[in-house]
């Protein structure tokens, strides 16, 4: 048995009230690679991402059916501790959301709430992940400043460092460069490409060129349905479904 899907979705339906936004999604997301979810806006990309770390739990009218298996365990099983699920998946959102505290504390926040207290160890963790996110040299002299003083691009890399500091296995990225300038976008993309060796990355984007630059696998969502999934080279260059082709050639957006 080849179990290379770290996350597998089996018949996932999501409803907002009576409105079905995801329809019977089944998908295996391979480990240590970048899976890019593309599709026109409103197709359910972000919702799909929020299923993975159960952020949909916070949306009162949202209901999830089906199974999402993470290393073989259904994360929607009743006995699952949702904070543990989330700890194993880092999130990078559209706009960087720095916590209202210092640069240092932003990175230390995750490890602290999960029980790390030793000052030296926290120092070490903060430096390690700021380096991993490619931000250390820019901020090492001003770690105690409020994180909100960083530029927006730096904030996004801080969010990356903060997410990595809880030592997740998966990184969920929701259009992580949409608020950034081209230079900062390239910077974040470069970090993601470096990180895929050790992490499984799921990235939502509406920028096809970004998908081309980053994707190992591509999933195309349209009106809540998974239309096509496969290696990037296949889906992006010779799509099987006419709807995928239409999206990639820019006929639907």
């Amino acid at each position: 048995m080849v179990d290379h899907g770290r996350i597998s979705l089996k018949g996932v339906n999501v409803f907002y009230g009576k409105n079905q936004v995801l329809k019977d999604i089944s998908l295996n997301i391979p480990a240590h690679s970048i899976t890019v979810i593309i599709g026109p806006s409103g197709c359910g990309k972000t919702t799909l991402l929020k299923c993975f770390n159960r952020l949909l739990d916070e949306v009162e009218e949202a209901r999830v059916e089906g199974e999402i298996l993470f290393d073989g365990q259904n994360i929607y099983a009743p006995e699952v501790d949702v904070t543990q699920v989330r700890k194993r998946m880092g999130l990078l959102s559209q706009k960087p959301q720095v916590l209202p505290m210092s640069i240092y504390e932003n990175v230390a926040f995750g490890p602290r709430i999960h029980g790390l207290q030793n000052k030296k160890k926290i120092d070490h963790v903060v430096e390690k992940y700021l380096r991993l996110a490619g931000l250390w040299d820019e901020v090492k002299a001003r770690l105690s400043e409020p994180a909100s003083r960083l530029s927006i691009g730096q904030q996004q890399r801080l969010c990356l460092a903060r997410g990595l500091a809880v030592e997740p296995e998966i990184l969920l990225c929701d259009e992580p460069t949409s608020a950034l300038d081209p230079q900062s976008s390239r910077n974040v993309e470069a970090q993601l490409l470096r990180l895929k060796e050790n992490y499984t990355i799921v990235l939502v984007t509406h920028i096809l060129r970004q998908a081309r630059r980053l994707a190992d696998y591509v999933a195309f969502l349209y009106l809540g349905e998974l239309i096509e999934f496969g290696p990037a080279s296949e889906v992006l260059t010779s799509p099987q479904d006419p709807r995928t082709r239409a999206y990639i050639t820019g006929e639907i957006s």
Partner: protein
Amino acid sequence: MKKEGLAARVSGLSAFFPVVLVSAIFLAIFLKALPLLSLKSWSHLIFSSAWQPQKGEFGLWPFIIGTLSVTAVAFLLALPVSLFTALYLAEYAPNRARKMFLPAIDLLAGLPSVIYGMWGMLMVVPLVSKYLAPLFGTSSSGYCLLTAGVVLAVMIMPTIIHVSVEVLGSVPVSLKEAALALGATRFEVVRYVILKKARPGLLAACILGLARAFGETIAVLMVVGNVPEIPRSLFSPAYPIPALLANNYGEMLSIPGYESALNLAALILLLLVIIFSLLARLYLSRLIRRSV
């Protein structure tokens, strides 16, 4: 271009209006208070506890302490309840509950204060005199500092709650999600992220509540006892400045110096409110500057 100039000038003048009005009120009260100030020193009038208008003794200290203590008791009672209610409504309550509670709370904010006064006399006064005071081994008529504090607390809570709910609601959902995504529990998100982000706004909510508490007159006057002494305990009567003014202004003004003394009391009340709101504003702006 010309029209714009006119609009700017008109709105500029209107902006001046409140400033002029406040200054005029201040000046009128100050001029009325002046005769007494020429007879006795500021410090004597403020710090003396002797209030015997017939004998020409106008010590305002009991009233100042009355004002401060009623406000403090009300604020200390209202603050925790309001903040927890607001937190519940903003962070934990299902949408349906929120939609039911908020209008009800707004309704409470709009009730005439005399209704609160009557509620205090009907319910809180007996409760305090029959049950609470004996529980603490003392006796009380029920018309006391504690009763006034409770009534006033209930009156300022809707304001604090409403503003706090709005403030908490303005914390971006994606910020909460960012913290949750790190594996934080709901409580940790509230404790370390939401409360921190919302702190300046919550403080502003408290200032609004406090400002209302300082000036509230009728409801307090109905239950506070109105005895011009410094209250010895929560169960003693007090006499805050607004009650003093409402009870006496316009009557017995034939007593020499009396009107002047009441005006001085009004002036002190104004100064107290202004000093408090200035301090609060100062603190608020520092808080905002630091969090930027």
